[in-house]
Structure formats: structure tokens, C-alpha cells
């Protein structure tokens, strides 16, 4: 069935396996009563349960918390955080500022655009290696396709201060021997031994840890959505507490114009 018949079949009614709200009675979350069966879940546990429908061990959840904690920087210079801060400075609302900052985090050269490519690369490459492919071929294919490998190389900096603490935690939790994580380090060694100068960054580590937790590409993408969130409210708060309009104010001299020379508007081009 397709076309208008398909649409008609779905009109006026939500058919859901995910859940629903029955005001005054109960709320169902993936088939479970939120206020009875799931009431003791912590927030990350519920969030990941909502994405996957699966439960995770205490150690796995601890690692998931850390992936978020280690990527939350309250630095208003960072582009996505700057959006939250500018909202505070321009006296917008906190929700609008932080929501926009999170949306901006779905970027091509950092954030969600990289995360989804990083986890896809690590999952796909592991499957291909299991099927007998050579690592060099996998890497070359990815480099040819994307002119880089997501999770390797980092804008603005070379080293990545997040790797040591997340690896220390993963070791302490016994979660540092997963096949995807080991593959990430193998790829890192391969790239560093070549001419590419693409050192591994936190994106590759987090993606590999996520894959070892059993998250699919799309599940991981949704899991990391709030990764930068905790750093954003401080940026909003601080700029909101400063005199209005004082976050990175730009004078006319801050604008370096490189365009066309001044020219006359031709009235013949305009509406009679």
C-alpha cells in the first residue's frame, strides 16, 4: 500500500511501540510504567533505554556518563557554546540559546557530523577486517571517500586532552579491551606510521567505546546528542550576568570587507 491510502491508514491515530501518556493515570515508556518500573533509573540510563530499548550495566553507564562529562567545556569562544552565550548577552531565553547551541553542534567538522562518520567507520572497518580485508585498504578507501577519517585529526589542536582520562576510566571499569577500541588504536598506529599526520582524537575513542557497548551507528548518533550540553548553560549564565551586548562586541573595524567597490544603485533595476 502506498500513496493516499497509506496516509489515510495513519490519519488521526498514533500507533506506537514507544509509549504514551495517559494523564491522571500513567505514562508508558517503551512498554514500562515510567513511575513504577523505571522510576529508579538515572537520567542517562533512561535516555539510553529510550534510544535502544536495552539496559546497560552500572559500569557501562558510568562510561557513558564520562563520555558526556569529558566533552562539556564551558568556554564561550567555542562556536556552539558561543551561540548559547550570545543568546545570554542579547537577552534571549536560556532554552532558545541552549537549544540552538545543541543544534549547531550537529556540524560537519566537529560534533554530530563527525560522530556519526566515526562510529560508522569503526563498525564497518571491523566487519570488513573480520571478513578478511586488509587494514591498509580500509583506511585508503575511507581517505579516498572522505579526504580524511572522522575521529582522526582535530581542528584547532593536535593532541587531545580527553583521551587519557577516558582510557583510564575505561581500564578501571574493565571496558578497555573491546574489539572496536582496539581497532581504533590500531588505526591510530597505522596513520601515525604513515604520512598522514592524523592523530586519534576523542571522537574516535568515544565512537569505538560506543560501538563496544553495542550501540549501532544511529543509536550512537542519538546517544551523543547532549555531549556538549553541560558546558552550555554556564556560557549562557555568565553572559546573561554581564552588561547586555558585551559578549564579543564587534565594532565596524572588526569587519574586514573584501567585496565589491561602492557602486550606485541603478533605478532601472528597481520596481517602477
Amino acid at each position: 500500500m502506498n500513496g493516499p491510502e497509506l496516509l489515510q491508514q495513519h490519519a488521526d491515530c498514533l500507533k506506537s511501540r514507544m509509549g504514551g501518556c495517559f494523564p491522571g493515570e500513567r505514562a508508558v515508556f517503551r512498554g514500562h510504567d515510567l513511575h513504577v518500573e523505571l522510576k529508579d533509573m538515572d537520567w542517562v540510563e533512561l535516555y539510553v533505554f529510550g534510544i535502544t530499548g536495552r539496559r546497560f550495566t552500572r559500569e557501562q553507564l558510568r562510561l557513558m556518563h564520562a563520555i558526556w562529562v569529558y566533552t562539556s567545556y564551558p568556554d564561550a569562544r567555542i562556536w556552539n557554546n558561543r551561540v548559547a552565550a550570545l543568546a545570554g548577552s542579547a537577552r534571549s531565553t536560556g532554552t532558545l540559546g541552549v537549544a540552538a547551541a545543541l543544534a549547531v553542534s550537529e556540524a560537519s567538522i566537529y560534533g554530530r557530523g563527525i560522530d556519526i562518520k566515526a562510529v560508522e567507520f569503526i563498525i564497518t572497518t571491523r566487519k570488513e577486517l573480520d571478513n578478511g580485508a586488509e587494514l591498509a585498504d580500509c583506511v585508503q578507501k575511507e581517505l579516498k571517500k572522505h579526504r580524511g577519517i572522522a575521529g582522526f585529526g582535530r581542528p584547532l589542536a593536535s593532541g587531545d586532552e580527553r583521551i587519557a582520562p577516558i582510557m583510564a576510566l575505561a581500564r578501571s571499569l574493565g571496558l578497555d579491551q573491546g574489539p572496536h577500541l582496539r581497532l581504533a588504536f590500531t588505526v591510530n598506529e597505522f596513520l601515525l606510521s604513515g604520512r598522514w599526520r592524523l592523530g586519534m582524537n576523542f571522537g574516535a575513542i568515544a565512537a569505538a567505546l560506543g560501538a563496544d557497548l553495542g550501540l549501532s551507528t544511529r543509536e550512537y548518533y542519538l546517544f551523543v546528542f547532549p555531549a556538549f550540553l553541560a558546558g552550555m548553560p554556564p556560557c549562557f549564565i555568565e553572559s546573561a550576568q554581564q552588561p547586555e551586548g558585551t559578549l564579543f562586541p564587534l565594532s565596524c573595524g572588526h569587519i574586514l570587507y573584501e567585496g565589491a567597490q561602492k557602486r550606485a544603485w541603478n533605478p532601472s533595476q528597481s520596481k517602477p
Partner: protein
Amino acid sequence: MSDEKPAEQIRTRIWLEEPEPDNPFATRAAYCHGYDVYGAMLGQARWVEMLYLLFRGDAPTPAQSELLEAVAVALANPGPRDPSVHAAMCGGVGGSTAAASLIAALAVGAGQLSGGRELLLSMEAWHSCGMDLDAWQRRMTAPGDDTASIWPTPEHPPGFDPHGVTTTTIVKQTIACLAAMSTGPRLPWLEENLSSLEAAAGCPLAMSGVAAAAFSDLGFSPEQGEMLFLLLRLPGAAAHALEQWKYGHKKFPFFKIELESDSEEVK
């Protein structure tokens, strides 16, 4: 205050601002691609001329202005059935902020089903296939790009309506109007080859497909077309959001729910 050049600067080819003598943060004159916006354009230039100038860097010809104006009218309100307007109304009906209603319209209207991403993909098809019917047919039958992306894998040829039966009257009216005003070859070719294209796509042309042809004829890049499409559909979203706030939530559909499983097994 110091007259020294700031350490950090924003580079732009679009906008020049000259400061008031008493305040480097206040504008005495602003130039858009060289035209004095407040001293010469204001009161003379049309909104769509400003729009075209901002994106393309030069003033449009009268014919280009007419075409862009017609496209803007066609896109101004997708109507309350459209998901983007529906989303804006969800903001309006609950008294969300104006920006939230527009953000909702943008987010929902950004996608690959009648959204900004569909427009971009459709324009990429125009840039790739041009007026070569064989190229269109090959493109529509080619396997999709399986590269992992924040965007889902496309489920239908961009610019066409996967749920459509025949070309809607309003799409036909829009093609006829825009093709007659065309400043480029694509709109007339689209009108002439519509049935062949729809046969290749397996579904009728959508409004986004018409807009993609028009933006291509106007010389916009796919990225510029995507932005314009998002922008030009906002007026209707805004008006409908405000209207639903006036009606109140008791007159806005909530729909019934059927839980398909009331006890999904925890894996």
C-alpha cells in the same frame, strides 16, 4: 577609544559598515555588495532584489526579480497540513516563544520530505543532469549514497512526492507560471518533459522540485537554494503559529493513541 585595528576580524564580501564618528559600534552607512543600503536602496529596491543581491552578489535583472518574487509567493505558505507548519503550530498553540515556533518549522522543514534537504538534493540533480533526460533517468535508478551521515538515506527521488498520485493542480499552475517567466532553460524544459521525469521517478513532481528548477535558473547554488527555501516558507509557519495561539489548545488536534505493545520486553 583606540583607533587601532582589532586583533580579530570577520571577513566578508557581502557587507561593509562605516561607523558614526562618535561611536565605532554604531553604523553611519551600510553597503551590501557595494550598494548603499539605507542611502540608495531603501525605498527603491524590492525585498526580492535585496534577497538576490545578498546571495548572488549582484542586483538581479527585472526578469529575475519577477521570477524570484513569484517563487516567494508560491512558497510563502505550505499550509497547515505541511509538517513544518504543523510543527510551528505546535509551538504557537502552547504559547511557546515566537522563535521556538520558527525553529520548529525550520527543524521539521529541513528534511528530505518536502524540506530544505530535499531542495538541496533536487538542485544537485539539476546541476548534475541539466536538461538531459537520460541523465535524469540514470540518476533516479542509480543506487543511493550509503555514506553515513546525519541525514537519513533518501527514500524517494528528491523533488518528487512519494505519496502523490498525479501532479497536483497547484504544482502544475506553479510550473506554468514560472516557466512563462523563466530566466533560464530549466523551468521550460521541466514543463515540457514533466511526464517523462515523473515516469522515471515513479511519482509526481512536488513543489520542492519546481522550486529547485527555479532556483537553478536564477543561478543559485544548491546550498543557497536550501537556505532560501527554508527562509521563504517561514511566513506561513509564523502566521499559522500565531493563529493557533488565538484559537487555543482545546481546538487543536491531540489525536488518539494505540500502544502496539504495552509491555515491550526488556532485552
